């Protein structure tokens, strides 16, 4: 307890608060630019922290991380282009709300639910880290594989109106995810002789193209009339009723985010999709999803920010990095002589609690920083479409180049964008591509490892309690939406028949 209080006093020093604010401002910018991510923000600033005190260093990195995860959602709402993959589900709903002239409302929800999800995950980090660490230890390769399959079930909810095409897109995208070296022998598969494809498709360029260029092409569909047209921001005010109406949704999504964050190799992006999926399942109006459901935004944002604190739990308690940014945290902590792992809380209590309490503060400060960015960012909507379209193209090209400094990746981005546009025109949902690419590699790797471990005794897998539970969950999450859809269709048919009779 004394350590926690000490953490408080450390965090509340003016210098540390300034560091948090600065980190947030920079982090949000990284998140908002396509091609830049929370991971890059943290990686670039690690050397700066060498000269800082350990506590302050970790606060800066935490602020960059949280800001980066949050920042992706601002362009996701305003132009329908997620700054990071973690905001892809937000884009689905945000776009529609902006078209309705409710950008302000959408942005406020984004900020509020991000703060909520992030703060809750920080509290989880403070209170139940040791307990959650035990769960993290149960997650081995078979469980990771099942989580990936479980994640794929989201495709069903994402493409409800067009189930067959959605599943087909997901399967083909999984094939695309197998491009490049296989996980066991390192043989380059399906490269067509391109050296650049030995490592497979980089996910980020594909996603930038997939989400940004179709928006540009859609603007071009109406070439003559609309190019000078601008949008409106609308009021940012939220009625209290609307906020509390989403409370349960927010808590559920944050908890999903925390749990996904704990699992190695699944981060904020998967968390956002899963939380969105569950919100849609639980919603009274699932049909509104995709055409501006606030619930979807809340779920996605509380989910992806929930994963920030979640991914630090296995890092701090076991020394296992649960995500790419967490891996960089690990490096930075070690250089400061702080060794994450079971001994951390006893040996470096002051620094750790400074970081955890700081994590709560950072998430609260994120409200202020977030609203400032939203306010200024929403000015984008007043820019005429001709300028906006041009800027998006330039940003997508430069942003993609920034991820790996390769022109080949820029071509991949362009190809993905064109493909995404053709898909959208012909009612093929594009989000399953993102999901399959994010999950595919991991799924194959953990499958290959599981097969090696359990060679010749596959049934023993079910002696792992968590694996069995996840398998049941997965089966349920594949079957449930299908049954529900069938029921709803039957009901609609009945109603239609009754109407006719009358």
């Amino acid at each position: 307890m004394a350590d926690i209080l000490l953490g408080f006093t450390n965090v509340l020093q003016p210098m540390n608060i300034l560091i948090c604010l600065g980190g947030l401002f920079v982090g949000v910018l990284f998140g908002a630019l396509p091609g830049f991510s929370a991971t890059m923000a943290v990686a670039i600033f690690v050397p700066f922290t060498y000269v800082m005190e350990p506590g302050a260093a970790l606060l800066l990195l935490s602020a960059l991380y949280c800001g980066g995860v949050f920042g992706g959602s601002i362009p996701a709402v305003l132009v329908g282009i997620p700054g990071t993959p973690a905001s892809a589900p937000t884009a689905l709903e945000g776009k529609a709300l902006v078209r309705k002239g409710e950008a302000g409302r959408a942005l406020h929800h984004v900020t509020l639910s991000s703060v909520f999800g992030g703060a809750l995950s920080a509290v989880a980090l403070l209170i139940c880290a040791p307990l959650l660490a035990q769960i993290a230890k149960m997650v081995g390769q078979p469980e990771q594989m099942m989580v990936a399959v479980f994640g794929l079930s989201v495709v069903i909810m994402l493409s409800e109106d067009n189930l067959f095409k959605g599943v087909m897109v997901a399967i083909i995208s999984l094939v695309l995810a197998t491009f490049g070296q296989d996980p066991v022998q390192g043989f380059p598969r399906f490269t067509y002789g391109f050296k650049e494809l030995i490592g497979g498709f980089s996910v980020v360029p594909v996603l930038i193209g997939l989400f940004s260029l179709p928006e540009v092409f859609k603007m071009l569909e109406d070439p003559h009339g609309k190019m000078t047209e601008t949008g409106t921001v609308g009021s940012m005010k939220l009625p209290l009723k609307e906020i509390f109406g989403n409370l349960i949704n927010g808590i559920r999504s944050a908890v999903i985010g925390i749990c996904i964050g704990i699992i190695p190799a699944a981060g904020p992006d998967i968390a956002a999709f899963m939380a969105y999926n569950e919100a849609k399942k639980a919603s009274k109006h699932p049909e509104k999803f995709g055409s501006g459901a606030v619930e979807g935004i809340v779920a996605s944002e509380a989910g992806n920010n929930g994963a920030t604190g979640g991914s630090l739990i296995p890092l701090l308690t076991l020394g296992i990095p649960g995500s790419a940014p967490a891996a960089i945290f690990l490096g930075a902590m070690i250089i400061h002589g702080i060794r994450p792992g079971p001994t951390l809380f006893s040996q470096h209590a002051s620094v750790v609690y400074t970081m955890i309490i700081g994590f709560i503060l950072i998430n609260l400060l994120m409200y202020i920083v977030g609203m400032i960015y939203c306010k200024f960012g929403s000015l984008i909507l007043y820019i005429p479409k001709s300028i906006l379209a041009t800027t998006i193209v330039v940003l997508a090209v430069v942003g993609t180049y920034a991820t790996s400094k390769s022109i080949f990746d820029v071509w991949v981005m362009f190809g993905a964008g064109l493909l995404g546009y053709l898909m959208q025109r012909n009612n093929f949902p594009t989000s399953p591509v993102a999901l399959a690419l994010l999950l595919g590699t991991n799924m194959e790797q953990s499958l290959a490892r599981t097969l090696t471990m359990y060679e010749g005794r596959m049934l023993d897998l079910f002696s792992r309690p968590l694996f069995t539970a996840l398998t049941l969950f997965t089966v349920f999450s594949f079957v449930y939406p299908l049954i529900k859809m069938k029921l709803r269709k039957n009901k609609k048919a009945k109603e239609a028949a009754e109407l006719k009779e009358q």
Partner: protein
Amino acid sequence: MRKTCIAIVLVLALIVSAMGIASAEGFYEGKTVEVIVPWKEGGGADVACRLILEYVKAELNCNITVINVTGGGGSIGLNQLLSGDADGMTLAYIANTDTNGNIMLDGVTYGLEDFAPVARFAADPHVIVASNASGIKNLEDLIAAGQDGKTLWGIGGAWTHWDFLKIEFEKATGTSYKRLVYDGGATAMTDIMNGDCTVATPFVSEALPALDANEAVGIAITSAERNPQLPDVPTVAELGYEGFESTMWRGFAAKAGAPEEALKEFAEAVGRACGNAEFIEKAAKAGVTVDYMGYDDFQVYFAENHEAVKAAYEANKDQ
């Protein structure tokens, strides 16, 4: 009038730029150097590179940006180095097995001649660890477990130094283990801690958290001497396999044809950084074993290492 003005401006510009060249003390001063790290952010290679480059930057008085270009067992990043200009402004992190890319990795075309070695800055040992669940407590147990070829041995990536360490160990002790491929030492450690994997060979920094907390057993270390971070873990050599040494050296290389003067300057800066007390202290904490080798020595070592790895691969590729 206007022409005179332009002429004056031009002459002034020339003088200024000439002075600029004259006053610059080194090739890199004031410029931005790119260093490609072909492994992901936060991994062993990335941590080591970012740490040393922070000090090299100060030595050269230049700006260094680190780019992580991942995938393809490091080949994507190295291909990117080789597709650029040989102007000495782009360098890449390189380690034991990279120069044999063309024979080890299908689809990779680069080899020894494509690189201009610059300097080596570290040589990191691996720690052989076993899971608590396995009951393996020491090297004897480990050798006993390696008789039937069914014990799982987690490595951090296909056909990098991880694979060679396994091969070298098996050869020295007459054992064989079942190969299980992970994407990095940290991931393998996770499975050691929950008992799914039996043996793994992470770097010191990756093994420390688990060993501190008795969540895994440290069997031996693969360097010639014990590691200050793990004073209780014996070396493989002192346990009866004299001369056994297998470390992952870390260095920098440029594209072949890059100006030698520049590379020498960079190598010297790396050397000075390696002598910096502050760096040495930070490196020790990060589990990086500093082991500098300058430009001239590294040229020889680079070629010898290439042949050694090639021979080891040729002898074992059918495994």
